[in-house]
């Protein structure tokens, strides 16, 4: 993993740790997990869609570049 990504994760982590809350509460911790999935849904979904259609995207871009150059 590149150093810049490590620095990015670390910075996000540091910022989140400023909002630290300790969790020994009554509410089911599953709620956080549920909302977390919704929060990252678009990121994960977009990543998966790109991965699934990667070969088609590549082909499309190649064709586009070929048309432009000719």
């Amino acid at each position, binding site marked *: *993993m590149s150093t810049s*990504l*490590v620095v990015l*994760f*670390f910075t996000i*982590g540091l910022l*989140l740790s400023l*909002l630290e*809350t*300790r*969790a*020994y*509460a009554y*509410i*089911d*911790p*599953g*709620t*956080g*997990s*549920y*909302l*977390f*999935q*919704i*929060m*990252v*849904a*678009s990121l*994960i*979904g*977009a*990543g*998966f*869609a790109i*991965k*699934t259609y990667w070969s088609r995207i590549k082909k499309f871009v190649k064709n586009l570049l070929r048309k432009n150059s000719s």
Partner: protein
Amino acid sequence: MMSPNWVAEAGSFRDPNGFVFYRDGTVYRQLNRKHEDNYHRLVNSGLYESLVESKLLVPHKEVDVPPADRDDCFKIIQPERIPFLSYIHEWCFSQLKDAALVTLRIQKKALDFGMSLRDCSAYNIQFMECRPVLIDTLSFGIHEEGQPWGAYRQFCQHFLAPLMLMSRLDVRLNQLCVTELDGIPLHLARTLLSHRVYTSWPAFLHIYLHARFEDYYSTRIVPKDRSAGRFSHYSFRGLIDSLENAVMRLKLKQRSSQWLTYAAEGQSYSDDSFDHKVQTVKAYLDKCKPTEVWDLGSNTGVFSRVASESASRIIAFDQDPYCVEANYLQVKPDRANILPLVLNLSNPTPAIGWENQERRSLLQRASADTVLALALIHHLAITNNLPLPKLASFFAKICRWLIIEFVPKDDPKVQLLLTNREDIFPRYTIAAFEHEFGRLFSIETRTEIRSCKRTLFLMQRLPSS
């Protein structure tokens, strides 16, 4: 109303959709009315058939037996019986990894059929013919489009967190599951992984951020509309794909241990004496005609493979997770009838969970026809200070036939054990061994191993013991 003559499975009570029970020694699962639609979808959609065909789900048949709880019963099914239930804290790294990947494969297949796993407990996965299979038919629920995965947190706690800890920190950290019944809590995994959560995307996403959200919302009430229907098909597939990639990338850093090289180096036997030992063990096994053999202190399973020619099931226990790993990787391609498991005999798996009954201890789960205890007794007696009468009593509890090797005090390996300590074992002699074991077993035959000071014994438990 409850029917008589049935016994509830002590570890099957948390799911309101049904439970496991036993009647006349046969295992059944009651499906409650609440689960009717889910079961119909599982069977009628073709998902059940597809999973059983791929050997991902334990097969069952619908039976007409009196239900355990008549008031709520929709159907009784009889699943194929799992010969020996093993637990996450007894698995080596690759067993847990394979169990995780099978769970995700099942989830992907379930989504194809409009269903989803309602829970993701590692206790729902068991090994049959060295293959992880899901045993909980009740786990499947109809997937509501737009809903996130309800079992995501449990998957991370039961599979991803222990695998990451085993891979990045120490292979023994799945032992935390002995005290953490519902997998390793994410905030604990986050603390233990420390700065490592910043060096990998899966650890950052599925452990660190996930734990942060869990902590944050555990003290806040969330309006219902905030958590409704925003998880697309691509997001769901993406989540499973992300978890699958995370699990697949995890590897064990260290691959070797003192015990892993022990058998390969053949330190205790010449070729001739080793061959003699193998032939003697085979001859003893022919006499016992066992169905199930437990190979205690199996190392990488050399004698488990010898025993597998005579018995239909072998459980190969060793305390070294690297030996169990090597054994599992060796037997896995052949789908052999050997189940390698991690077990420290001087501190065997305890009973855990509600009333100490949800997950059974080793001795509560089963016993074997025949036990192999080869090159083991000196480690128990000398390294662990276990007196011979206690050892005899333990073996009498777990087996009918015992094939045991006595390693005398003048053996180089025992001398090595005594190098840096006082010899406080005047009773550790072959005469005392025969005397103490003779109280509980009849000694059928004994063979001195050629060119070696060790002796093999074949013993049968006395009817009175």
